[in-house]
């Protein structure tokens, strides 16, 4: 009965191997079919697993083999599918399948078609490992693997040096976070003697004394460091916008729907520890909120359509961390789900637009596309409304749940969150208006080529649009007459206590009204600014007002990192290279060599070739030896 579980990650791996080996030999249609079908079958199996969990109410645990065994410490290669990972499985395989389908159309003319599908399948494989692992070590394999695939796919067009640099940046930043995760695993092994989720969580309450807080704070902080790297939070968020160098389906799959939510999944999974470390949850909430505001501010002025979406993703991830920090695990996870729908939709829609205008990404050169690309326009409109938090679209419910918990936690943070939601609404509609309304601002040739995308592209858009619209139904709050299906579903994991909090004492309807009102105000402002006044962001060469310039240049964060981290590091490296390595170590080694040569040149003169002298010296030597043996 449980034997099919291992097939779920194995299928994408098989797809990777077939596509990877046959990338030049197989016809494109076959590669696309294999790449998509394996995901589709995995999706079917995931549904089966989901239904099984639903019917039994118990997690499925499968031990594939014992991987590491040292004394009492074992690391099994085991899978765990419970309520949390079952939903993740559905998202990964479901959204993943749609994006594979989309890629067939999107990447059709690319020379690296086979390679692309191989990487995508590999990514899905690692992502499934990440969510299915029943211990932190298996999770870490997936964690590292998705980082690798992210690197490979961001640098997919590696002949462009900028893209390759973006890939390196993403990889290095992820490594920083991974190190935190790794140390956290080591600490868990040290304190709990186990890496398995169940055992670790069972042992957490058993810790005694003052140490418990420190240990848990340390572990959770390190886990959070890992999450900031993978999920692009302050201070490690700058790689995500640059990651847009990859093909658009990659941005949708990896950098919006799945990989970047791994950090949220990991923290939600480890919530037992986070619950007992209030210091860390505070930090998580503050960092999440700060990231949300900061990224939203940057997104306000970006002109590259994918950059807007990238910063929007960072901002939404900030929301999710805010939710985790304030204890709204269900809300955060809910937002993960809805975000996966609408952000994947928006990215794919953006990809469709880019496809239509022959690779142009600058919104200043778009406009008026809604007539030419009706399906893309309507689906993107759905996504935009959803992310802006306007009811009854999905984003409203998930965002509202987080905000409601935040209000309970701290009203100030709540208001900052609402302002951020306002920003979100503004920049998303700004993007939509700039792209689809007004007059086309590109070249004639581009205008001539404008066309709606083929069915492989539009079908995923439509499916995702439907999901974005109705995804909120998963967890309609009780106050609006819903029955909070997701909350009940996740109860075995997160417990009732945390979730039941927002029943009394909070003016929930009022809060909803505030956030919806804010979103609508922003919408109207964007409409006035970009449609009525037809305002277009200025060209790069022109002067901008100070605040706009700050935002447009991403608050000079990259330059700041460059100055305070990279340049000192470079300087130290140069110092070590030139002084320690060149002069110190090389000097020592070369000095030994040349010293031997030089002293040999001197000593060589002793070798006169005069036999008499040699014998004389020999006799002296013998005398010395005899005297020595005589005396001692």
């Amino acid at each position, binding site marked *: 009965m449980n034997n099919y579980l291992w097939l779920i990650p194995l299928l994408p791996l098989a797809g990777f191997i077939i596509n990877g080996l046959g990338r030049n030999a197989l016809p494109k249609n076959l590669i696309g079919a294999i790449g998509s079908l394996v995901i589709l079958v995995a999706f079917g199996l995931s549904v089966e697993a989901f239904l099984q969990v639903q019917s039994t109410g118990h997690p499925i645990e499968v031990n594939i083999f014992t991987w590491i065994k040292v004394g009492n410490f074992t690391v099994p290669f085991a899978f765990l599918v419970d309520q949390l990972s079952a939903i993740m499985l559905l998202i990964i395989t479901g959204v993943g399948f749609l994006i594979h389908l989309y890629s067939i159309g999107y990447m059709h003319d690319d020379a690296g078609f086979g390679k692309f599908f191989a990487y995508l399948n590999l990514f899905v494989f690692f992502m499934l490992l990440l969510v299915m692992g029943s211990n932190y070590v298996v999770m870490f394999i997936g964690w590292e693997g998705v980082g690798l695939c992210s690197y490979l796919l961001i640098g997919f067009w590696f002949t462009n040096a900028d893209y390759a640099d973006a890939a390196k940046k993403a990889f290095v930043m992820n490594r920083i976070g991974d190190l935190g995760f790794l140390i956290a695993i080591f600490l868990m092994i040290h304190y709990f003697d186990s890496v398995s989720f169940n055992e670790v969580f069972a042992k957490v309450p058993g810790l005694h004394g003052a140490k418990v807080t420190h240990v848990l704070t340390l572990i959770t902080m390190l886990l959070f460091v890992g999450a900031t790297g993978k999920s692009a939070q302050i201070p490690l968020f700058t790689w995500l916008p640059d990651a847009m160098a990859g093909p658009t389906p990659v941005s949708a799959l990896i950098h919006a729907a799945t990989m970047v939510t791994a950090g949220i999944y990991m923290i939600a999974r480890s919530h037992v520890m986070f619950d007992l470390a209030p210091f860390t949850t505070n930090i998580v909430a503050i960092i999440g909120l700060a990231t949300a505001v900061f990224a939203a501010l940057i997104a306000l002025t970006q002109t590259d359509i994918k950059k807007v979406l990238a910063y929007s993703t960072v901002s939404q991830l900030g929301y999710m961390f805010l939710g985790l920090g304030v204890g709204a695990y269900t809300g955060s996870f809910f937002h993960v789900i809805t975000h996966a729908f609408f952000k994947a939709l928006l990215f794919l829609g953006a990809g469709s637009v880019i496809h239509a205008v022959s690779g142009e990404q600058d919104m200043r050169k778009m406009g008026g596309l809604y007539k030419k690309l009706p399906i893309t326009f309507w689906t993107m409109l759905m996504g935009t409304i959803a992310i802006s938090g306007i009811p009854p679209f999905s984003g409203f419910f998930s965002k509202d749940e987080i905000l409601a918990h935040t209000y309970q936690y701290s009203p100030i943070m709540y208001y900052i969150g609402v302002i951020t939601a306002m920003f979100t609404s503004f920049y998303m509609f700004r993007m939509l208006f700039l792209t689809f309304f007004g007059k086309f601002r590109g070249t004639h040739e581009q205008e001539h080529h404008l066309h709606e995308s083929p069915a492989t592209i539009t079908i995923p858009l439509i499916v995702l649009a439907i999901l974005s619209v109705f995804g909120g139904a998963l967890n309609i709050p009780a106050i609006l007459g819903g029955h909070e299906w997701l909350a009940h579903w996740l109860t075995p994991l997160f417990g009732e206590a945390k979730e039941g909090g927002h029943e009394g004492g909070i003016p929930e309807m009022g809060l909803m009204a505030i956030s919806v009102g804010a979103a609508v105000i922003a919408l109207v402002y964007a409409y006035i600014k970009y449609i009525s006044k037809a305002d277009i962001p200025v060209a790069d060469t022109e002067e901008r007002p100070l605040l706009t310039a700050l935002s447009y240049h991403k608050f000079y964060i990259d330059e700041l990192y460059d100055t305070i981290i990279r340049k000192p590091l470079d300087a130290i490296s140069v110092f070590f290279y030139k002084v320690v390595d060149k002069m110190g170590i090389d000097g020592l080694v070369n000095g030994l060599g040349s010293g031997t040569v030089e002293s040999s040149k001197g000593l060589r003169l002793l070798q006169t070739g005069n036999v*008499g002298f040699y014998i*004389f010296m020999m*006799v*002296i030597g*013998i*005398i010395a030896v*005899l*005297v020595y*043996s*005589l005396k001692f």
Partner: protein
Amino acid sequence: MSTFYFIAFLSIFFSLLVIFAKNPVHSVLYLILTFFTFTIHYVLLNAQFLAVVNFIVYMGAIMVLFLFVMMLLNLNKDAEPGKHYLVKLAGVIAGGCLLVTLVGTLKLTAKSDPVILQNANLGLVKNLGKVLFNEFLLPFEISSVLLLSAMVGAVLLAKKEQRATV
């Protein structure tokens, strides 16, 4: 007893003459005399076999070889340019030091008991032959190989090089 000291004195005297004689031919002759005194020493120790061998091999064969070479090379008159006297002095001093340390070292281990011949037959041919062909059979055989190879080597070295002339 006094015989020993007299012969010992002669040994030292002739060996000094060997190294200080100007003419190499004289050196060879003094060396023969020195070896003769050694033969007497062997006789005194009742090592008859060694005495005979010393007499035949050293005085008869080796020294004749020396003389032969000397004459072959026409070195009968002193062609040696002579070392600087300081070098000679240094050599003598070094040798003296060696003597002192050598004696000192050997004195530490040796006893001053008189040498008493326990077994009168010890140095006789019959006795030595038994030892040689029992315990030392293998070294004895190997030494024959040594001598053979030395002979071949000597012939090869001393032969005029044919290739140079061809």
